[in-house]
């Protein structure tokens, strides 16, 4: 995770800080989207080049073990993943709501200009939050690798899953990420019973479209509507 944090900071410094010269937030968003898209491309192909495009798994000694909780068998890896997720979410929540850094982040999101006028180092805040985001993605990768097979180029699938969860919860709505994730996971798992397991991703897309059409502010937010 620390390594991934450093990677995130470096990525920010190299790729995203040049974008700050664009005056408008939308423009920055567009450019950073395209740049990360290019980055995905490069890293995917590097992985293919170095480790061949075959699927791989990490086999752990506890990978097949399960634990019985109230008659439901849960694998250790799933349990560890859940614990890590709750831990990470709780830590992030504390950081964002209880520290000055969190205040800076929220201020920079709402109005970068005003935040920097009131003495927030917006650059540094962006950099550290980018680092934290990449580190969390790395943590998710660790959890994924113990329970799924991985391929180069398989990252996009998880990216889309993450996006669907964010849309479900509503952007800027940290507290509901876990329920949203659980809802999506349950829908996808139940759908494997009803239709072909291969269609998990189309189902995520359909959920995404439905949410966007009917509740673009997310399932849980009671506040103002978007757009």
């Amino acid at each position, binding site marked *: 995770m620390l390594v991934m944090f450093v990677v995130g900071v470096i990525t920010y410094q190299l790729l995203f800080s040049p974008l700050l010269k664009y005056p408008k937030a939308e423009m920055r968003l567009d*450019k950073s*989207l395209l*740049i990360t898209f290019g980055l995905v491309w490069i890293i995917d192909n*590097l992985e293919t080049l170095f480790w061949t495009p075959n699927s791989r798994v990490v086999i752990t000694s506890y990978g097949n073990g399960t634990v019985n909780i109230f008659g439901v068998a849960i694998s250790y890896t799933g349990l560890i993943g859940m614990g890590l997720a709750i831990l990470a979410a709780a830590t992030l929540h504390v950081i964002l709501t209880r520290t000055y850094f969190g205040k800076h982040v929220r201020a920079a999101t709402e109005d970068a200009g005003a935040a920097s006028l009131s003495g927030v180092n917006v650059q540094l805040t962006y950099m550290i939050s980018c680092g934290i985001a990449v580190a969390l993605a790395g943590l998710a990768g660790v959890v994924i690798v113990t329970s799924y097979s991985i391929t180069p180029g398989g990252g996009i699938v998880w990216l889309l899953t993450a996006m669907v969860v964010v849309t479900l919860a509503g952007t800027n709505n940290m507290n509901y990420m876990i329920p949203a994730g659980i809802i999506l996971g349950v829908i996808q798992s139940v759908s494997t019973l009803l239709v072909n397991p291969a*269609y998990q991703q*189309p189902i995520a897309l359909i959920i*995404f479209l439905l949410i*966007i059409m009917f509740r*673009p502010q997310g399932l849980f937010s009671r506040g103002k509507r978007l*757009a």
Partner: protein
Amino acid sequence: LIAIYWKKISISGVVLAVMIFVPLFINLGTGIMNQLVTLLIYILLAQSWNLIGGYTGQINLGIAAFFGCSVMVTHFMWVAGISIVISVLVGSLSTIILAALIGIPTLRLKGMYFAVGTLALAQALQVIMQNIFNRAIFTRGDYVQSFNINYRYYLGLVLVVIVLTAIYFIRRSKLGQALVAIRDDEQAAQVMGVNTFKYKVISLLISAFIAGLAGSLYAYFRLYFYYTGDIFSLNWTFSAVIAVIIGGGGTLLGPVLGSIFLVILGYIFSLTLGQANLIVFGLLFILVMLFMPQGFMGGADLFRSWLSRWRKRTLKNRESNI
């Protein structure tokens, strides 16, 4: 009118004449003809992305979905014995349904919803199609026997010329003005009374139609598809984006230049570097994005302004010498 634009018209006329007559009289060989058809496909794809990304400023990461949809429809219509012109039209029109499906919900919202929605559409379609058509698809045997690369080439040339002129006139119409206004400042455009949502959807539909043209050309060009997921793969989207960004988004000739660059360099690099050629393009893409956001066309403008400044300076020097 002709007096003003005689330079542009004559240059494009010469280029067009070369493109038409050289393959008629000189046998270029199948290899080069294949590369030329690929180039035409890339130009179409790049123009499609240019319209929605370069002129309208909406990041579309799902070109592959429109492309692949059109490939499938055109392929099956053509194999069923319907003439290729009709199958090209129907295949391209079929993408419009897809575009409306994804565009109408996502384009209403700001931010990354459109990009993510289109990306998800492409990925989902790839999975679905891979599961439905899990075997290789072939054209009919008699089509294989009568295969002639020149037909593909001229069909592609006609499509490219139509699309380029269409985009030229769109840019100069009210629609084009609205699109550029949306790109430059969506809020301001809305305040001025432009129905931004309507124009964004129209732009997406036209763009999807052009991507569909590229797809149907590909369906006509290829005889078999071993792996159906391939025609929906991210590569197509990435090629389109990279051609537009390198060439210069929001210009008519930028994507054409970018595609030429992409095809030629791709040809050279895939021979010399093998697998690593895709990484080179990724690096190039990011570098252009960061340091030359206007692409080649912007670079040409910079060069031109530098040249005129230099000329002025030398003139001044001469005057002061006299």
